[in-house]
């Protein structure tokens, strides 16, 4: 408690004496909104990482389908979301698609949108990163020798069983480095949610530096936090990669 008090007093003193102004340490209003922003960034990152990996796995399965229309849908999805800027997608979902959906009425009788900014941000980021993940999983799948698939078939595995129990586990090991890359990109892309007023880290930092004119300090804080976030993600992915390693597969 006293340590916390000393720390806020020290940062307050730092501002008074040098003008280096870290309001998020000693101003309770700024601290509260900054921590909310950090929490929201973690939420968006977590939800979109899980969602986009799932989309990648399902999409890659769809690409191998015997039905032409399933392959067509997956191809359209990948081309659409891989070839358009994520910011445009986010605006399209939030302002464009949202206007076409029915709304709900609130207590005052106003029409309110059904889906809030946070959900739209997650949906659009899942679609964006998911389209890359489909291709990443495909690259892993194509690295598996066809003899392996044939061996599974001759043992009586169905197509789904072959995918889930044989191809996917092997493909995952091959494509993990590329997947890590894409997920790192995804965590950084969560900052785009600020364009649709989702109060994540960049949004709250922007508010804080407009109110206090402390742009350099907040930029520094943002850099350090994103380096830490991405560092933790990369560390976890590498640990997973090592745990999954099978001698003789890949390098």
């Amino acid at each position, binding site marked *: 408690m006293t340590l916390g008090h000393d720390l806020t007093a020290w940062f307050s003193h730092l501002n008074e004496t040098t003008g280096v102004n870290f309001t998020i340490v000693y101003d309770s*209003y700024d601290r509260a909104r900054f921590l909310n922003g950090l929490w929201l960034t973690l939420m968006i990152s977590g939800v979109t990482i899980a969602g986009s990996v799932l989309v990648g796995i399902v999409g890659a399965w769809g690409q191998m389908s015997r039905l032409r229309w399933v392959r067509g849908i997956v191809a359209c999805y990948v081309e659409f979301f891989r070839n358009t800027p994520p910011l445009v997608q986010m605006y399209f979902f939030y*302002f464009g698609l*949202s*206007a076409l959906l029915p*709304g709900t009425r609130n207590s*005052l*009788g*106003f*029409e*309110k*949108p059904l889906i809030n*900014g946070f959900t739209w941000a997650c949906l659009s980021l899942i679609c964006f990163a998911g389209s890359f993940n489909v291709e990443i999983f495909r690259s892993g799948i194509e690295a598996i020798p066809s003899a392996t698939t044939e061996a599974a078939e001759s043992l009586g595995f169905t197509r789904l069983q072959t995918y889930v129990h044989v191809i996917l586990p092997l493909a995952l090991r091959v494509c993990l480095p590329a997947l890590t890359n894409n997920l790192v990109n995804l965590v950084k892309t969560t900052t785009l949610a*600020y*364009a*649709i*007023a989702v109060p994540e880290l960049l*949004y709250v930092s*922007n*508010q804080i530096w*407009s*109110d206090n004119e402390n742009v350099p300090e907040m930029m520094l804080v943002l850099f350090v936090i994103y380096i830490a976030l991405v560092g933790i993600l990369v560390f976890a992915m590498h640990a997973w990669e090592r745990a999954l390693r099978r001698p003789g597969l890949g390098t």
Partner: protein
Amino acid sequence: MRNKLAYLGLLAGALAIFGTNVAQADELQDIKSAGVLVVGVKADYPPFGFLSPSGANIGIEPDLAANLAQRLGVKVQFVPVVAANRIQFLQQGKINLLIATMNDTPEREKIVDIIHPNYYASGYNVLAPKSVKLTSWAQLKGVPVCAIQGSFYNKDVGEKYGAELIAFTGVAEALAALQQGRCDAFLYDNTAIEGELTDPLWKAYDMPLPTLGEQPWGMAVKNGEPALASFISQASEDWAKTGYILSLETKYGIPHSAYAEQQHDKYKA
């Protein structure tokens, strides 16, 4: 040797003083001899400075500029400016005068010559559907309110009145969000809201709250142009005296602002 240098220094100093003197005496004269007054105005801030369907600069501020040009007996030429470049345009001599919804602040007083008396003032208010029935700022507690990222009054409204701010990067996004019902009100400059309200698109909306945080606007010329500055200052006093600003408000269909009325009362005596 040292003497020679001292003389050279004196000479250079004298030339510099002479040079600036010439420039000082001349900007008003230059305008008259060139026959044109170049004025920086906004092009995206109806009704203060905006574009007509044919692309001409129109609005209250272009009208003020035209009034000054008429007093000088010269033509007026407009250069569209935005907040981020307007002072630089003035300092670089791209424009003679700036009339661009600029707040008069001590920092700006240092780098350009802001004309007194101030000609207008703005504060902040909300644009809200008439059915929301707002009468006091305290009612905004917990209410979703759209805003513009970086506005200096966001923190006040969030902290003091407990509004739940949803801030966007641009005005168009915030207005779209208001129309889609993502917020119950839009927090912005009262002057800009009055401008929006002249558009029939917003006929189901109004600006129900008392305007807060009012700050004066100032026209500006380059530092060190006393002749031009005093000429414009005279005109500004004249506008206050005759109620010219009030008549322009009527012309562009916005209600009389408290500030313009105060200035009129003060100077007509």
